């Protein structure tokens, strides 16, 4: 009804989050999976030259099929994005805003300094997601709490410079090139977008968490990593501007009422009374700040199934998933490991 927006001023807009049902039905697949490799703050999985590469803060590792790891490089700042060409050439983005390709720095357009995702298209184009114009990539939680929507997607065609494809995106965090277009995960609006010459169109809405990296699935479609859950308390805080800014000014960032890559490690963390633990037992269905979730999408981006590490699990903060060595490997940044599942 046309009066609903006016009535909402008086009755308050419902703060709700989409249920974890259908393809998102909760399970313990990520916690049941074996640890492929222990890696602190594991992030950015990608295959280059048939070998799995992963990052851990500023370190870049190559991981063998048995999970053995070899550090091949330490960068000046934390690695925020990683992509590989079919020939094995690596593009590495750092938290200081720089981009390195084949070991050489790449000139970036003005305003690009928060690279959250990189991907090579089949034509050799390099797609780049710039998460924010106001924050660095590692300060993602501040960008969310400021409710910024200054992210952009860029494309560098072979032999050309970067050109802006889309802007005004609320933290683009994953890229999946699809011909002349790309699928982008827009974290703060919990959705996937299709961006290209035709503009920006929503491709999948109302995700139950904050989407991160996208990688292609061998059988068609894609894997989408979701790095944190939506939570009604956080949604409420996001609506309360004065509270939010006071919290950001006065409370250490680790203890903000905000999504997290891991939780439950300090008694100072915000809790919802008995909502998380009851009689010392951590409830699996609790509305926690962190979660682990990887979703299998079909070629039309319809969710088919999902792998979870629930509130009482430990493989949280899933930022990246890739099919490698005949398995699906999931980087759990909050769980400090790479998990292997048999779902690939």
């Amino acid at each position, binding site marked *: 009804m046309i009066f609903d927006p006016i009535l909402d001023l008086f*009755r308050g807009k419902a703060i709700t989050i989409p249920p974890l049902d*259908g393809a998102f039905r909760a399970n313990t697949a990520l916690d049941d999976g074996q640890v492929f490799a222990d890696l602190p703050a594991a992030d950015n999985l990608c295959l280059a030259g048939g070998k799995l590469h992963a990052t851990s803060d500023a370190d870049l590792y190559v991981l063998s099929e048995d999970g053995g790891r070899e550090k091949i490089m330490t960068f000046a700042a934390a690695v925020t994005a990683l992509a590989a060409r079919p020939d094995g050439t690596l593009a590495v983005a750092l938290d200081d805003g720089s981009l390195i390709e084949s070991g050489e720095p790449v000139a970036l357009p003005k305003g690009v300094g928060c690279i959250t995702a990189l991907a090579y298209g089949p034509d050799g184009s390099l797609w780049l997601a710039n998460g924010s114009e106001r924050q660095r990539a590692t300060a993602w939680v501040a960008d969310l709490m400021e409710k910024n929507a200054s992210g952009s997607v860029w494309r560098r065609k072979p032999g050309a410079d970067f050109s802006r494809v889309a802007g005004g995106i609320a933290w683009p965090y994953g890229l999946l090139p699809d011909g002349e277009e790309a699928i982008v995960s827009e974290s703060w609006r919990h959705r996937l977008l299709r961006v290209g010459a035709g503009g920006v169109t929503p491709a999948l809405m109302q995700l139950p968490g904050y989407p991160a990296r996208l990688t292609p699935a061998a059988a068609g479609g894609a894997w989408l990593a979701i790095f944190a859950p939506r939570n009604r308390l956080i949604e409420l805080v996001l609506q309360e501007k004065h509270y939010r800014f006071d919290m950001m000014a006065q409370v250490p960032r680790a203890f903000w009422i905000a999504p997290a890559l891991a939780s439950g490690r300090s008694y100072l963390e915000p809790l919802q009374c008995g909502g998380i633990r009851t009689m010392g037992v951590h409830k699996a269905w609790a509305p926690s700040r962190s979660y682990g979730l990887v979703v299998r999408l079909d070629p039309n981006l319809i969710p*088919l199934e999902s792998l979870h590490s629930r509130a009482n699990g430990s493989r949280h903060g899933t930022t990246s998933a890739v099919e490698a060595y005949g398995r699906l490997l999931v980087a759990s940044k909050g769980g400090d490991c790479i998990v292997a599942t048999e779902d690939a």
Partner: protein
Amino acid sequence: MDAIVRMEKITKTYRSVPAVKDVDFDLREGEIHALLGENGAGKSTLTKVLAGVVEATSGKMIYQGKAVRFATPHEALRAGIAMVFQETSLVPSMTVAQNLYLGSEKFLNRLRGIYISAQQFLQSLNFSVDPTAMVETLGAAKRQMVEIARAVHHEARVIIFDEPTASLTPEEKRHFFALLRRLKERGVSIVFISHALEEALLISDRITILRDGELVATGPTDTFDRDKIIAAMVGRRLSGALYKKRDVSQLRKPGRKVLSVQDISMGAMVRNTSFSVFEGQITGVFGLIGSGRTETFKIVSGIYKRDFLGGGAVTFEDRPVRYYTPAEAVRDGIAYVTEDRKSEGIFETMSIGENLFGGLLSAKRETGTVIRMQAIRDLAEAWTERLNIKTINADAQVVELSGGNQQKVVIGKGLVQKPRLVIFDEPTRGVDVAAIAEIHQIVKALADQGLAVVMISSYLPEIMNLSDRILVCRQGRIVEELSPVEATEEKIMYAAVH
């Protein structure tokens, strides 16, 4: 203890379909006897025979040592058998006291005297109900109390309670159970019908379980436990090809999310429930009567309104919606096929075509200013053929059709609206077996065409046979989602009653 009532080989058929078949049942003096079974198991029919609401087709009933046959509830009440219905039979425009004394008034009544004696009587039962209050102003629980008080007031020797605790709060339930125990001490025999197994195990002396109209188990309560009761309630043979086990390799994959219901509430009937419905799938919704499943989907289809404050959110095709009338939902592409076809689904005295045309009008799919009778006839012919509606001609009035064919008209009325989400609420209730198979085919075909289909049913084999995913509703919310791969009747029932 001697049996105060003995029912032998009781059979009751409706249009040659047996609701209860050759059931032996006995009720002893001063016992509480729990009668359990799924919806449609025959519990209510058996007790209605006992209370004279319906007459048995065959069988014998012995009450206090004499063979009896009650033609009316009044006869049974005079003999000392009272029934407290789930939906109360009080007169809303009369006071509590007047309802208590209804049917047993003296020639000259002094209202003040009635109120005083009603007050004393209600106090003796520990019921905090004002005898001068109009019944229409009372909540469900208090109405239930008045109903119970009326049965006790008539000095019934046998009282039948049909789902008495469904509308009571935990505190009221405690009072109610204390009352049952006091009645028992006074030698009153009680038949207690409930879906709450804990209550049956807590309060009853003996338990009888019916399934598909037949007696499957009876015995002292201490010989039963929860699992044994559930197994007896659902352990039926699957009835032939109609309800053969689902081939799980043929499950439909979910399509786009069409409907997302998030934390919707409506009073005490629907409480913070959340779920999604996907296109190209049949989403089965199971729940016992009073679990809030119908109310939930009536909110979705704009028939009921969710709470004004804190009522949650509904998203249809990625668009937030809040319907104030069913017509808005129909125009958006939501068709609700009602469980109560007679009062909500069809215009009985209109023809098939006129009913179908009504569906078109409500969806605003008929834009002409002049109604052409030929268009109505064409519509009737097309849908009569498509849904295989058996009728003498397409001009026939709907009232002349059988239950199954009436149901097909209700379905057709929804489908002419070209919906994207179809909600079937108990579509096979009161429908013969042949029509059930046809309705199932229609439901499956809609899902195969890519529509989002919701199938609400309280018949477990139907849910298991049709659904691509199963939602279980209990106490106003969806409490469990099961895949047909893992679902068993026991698991579904367990979720529905725990």
